[in-house]
């Protein structure tokens, strides 16, 4: 490979702590397109407008997996309004940067969160 991942990306990739599903989730966000390689499902559990738990299932590159895992940590215990303010730049910074071709993977995670919140608000 002609680029290198940061240690933060590799650590999350190797040992994701938020992988999995939530039974009867309050909202689900599904993004990605198998044609371009990556699919992400994000599951939310919301109580009193606060995200109590977030889990992900991702089929993707190491960066996509790391961003998924990180997003879950960041979104946890935030109110819906706060969670909507999470940006992809914040994720990228938190992981110590990613190679340029992998920047879009962070967008995937943020999109999944927005979709999941949308789903939650529709169901409410």
């Amino acid at each position, binding site marked *: *490979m002609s680029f290198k991942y940061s240690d933060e990306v590799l650590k999350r990739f190797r040992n994701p702590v938020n992988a999995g599903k939530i039974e009867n989730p309050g909202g689900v966000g599904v993004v990605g397109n198998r*044609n371009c390689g990556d699919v992400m499902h994000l599951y939310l559990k919301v109580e009193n407008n606060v995200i109590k738990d977030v889990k*992900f299932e991702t089929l993707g590159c190491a960066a*996509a997996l790391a961003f998924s895992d990180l997003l879950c940590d960041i979104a946890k215990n935030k109110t819906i309004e706060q969670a909507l303010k999470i940006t992809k730049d914040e994720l990228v910074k938190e992981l110590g940067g990613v190679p340029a*071709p992998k920047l879009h993977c962070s967008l995937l995670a943020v999109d999944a969160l927005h979709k999941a919140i949308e789903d939650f608000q529709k169901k409410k």
Partner: protein
Amino acid sequence: MKKVYLDNAATTQVAKEVVEVMQPYFLEKYGNASCLHSWGQEARDAVEQSRKVIAEKINAEPEEIIFTGGGSESNNLAIKGTAFQLKDKGNHIITSEFEHPAVLNICKALGKKGFEVTYVAIDKNGFVNLEQLKNSITNKTVLVSIMHANNEIGTIQNINEIGNICKENNIVFHTDAVQSFAKVPIDVKKENITLASFSAHKLHGPKGIGALYIKKATKLKKQIDGGHQEFNQRSGTENVPGIIGFAKAVEVITEKNIENITEFRNYLINELLKIKGTALNGSQDNRLCNNVSISFKNVEGESILLSLDDKGVAVTTSSACTSSKLESSHVLKAIGLKSEDAHGTIRFTLSKYTTKEELDYTIESVRGIIKKLRGISPLK
């Protein structure tokens, strides 16, 4: 940690015997092969002896072999050299959709310089469509360039048939034999080959040294101007240690090596295909002895590669030069693989140093990794 190197299509470990014969040509016999004194003559003799070794391997004459800086350079000289030499005769070149970038990008560049290029399709088993190739020939066609064995999926093309077609139509036939050299027999006379590219580092030789077979009386427009080395076809002081090492690498490969590698390859294919949701890319017959290309459903290739690397196993997602791009491989696309399957493809390439124990460790590792990655994949 265990270390298992299964990326031998990218490059190989240099054989010990090769390093040993090269060493004196750095430390003692360092003469310039163009010089008349004894240092020079010593180097010259060794270069000519090496030329003979390469020539014999493909049933060519020694003066039909020139040494180059590797496979990419050989391809450049063969293709550009022919195209510019024959541009008054015609401007049409035929190649295939799944050539190495070292051929495709040359053709693309020529396409911008007034040449017309036809890219012949590949069937789902990994073979060039010969009917289409034949039908593409026009009275402007001056060159057909089709690789001998593909670097990603290992399929070996029917160069005998392609050579015949070219001979009948009086067209120059070039084949990129970088992956197949010393693994698949080549007879340039019988197969009517005009030009063939080789590279040492794919067969336990050093990097940066290759050769081009140029059939007698074939004229090429020189690509590197300068001195008169290599029959005035390629300027530059000969890389004497590299040339010596290249020839030694060719000499030490045995038929028994190839047989053993083939057996190991088949073992690896069979064991990996026992994992659910897997498929072999390219035909298992007429396949390089060391190539295993497997698509794993619902997993991303890069995640497999990095996880295997954590276990000390080196593999690749597609050819090394393209793995930092996000598009899926043009080779897998050419054989009609869906892009989702292309994204989950891993190439394992063996060498004569690969052991059964290493393969068992790899198979075990792959099983665990696929299970883990599918566990966190939304598609099961």
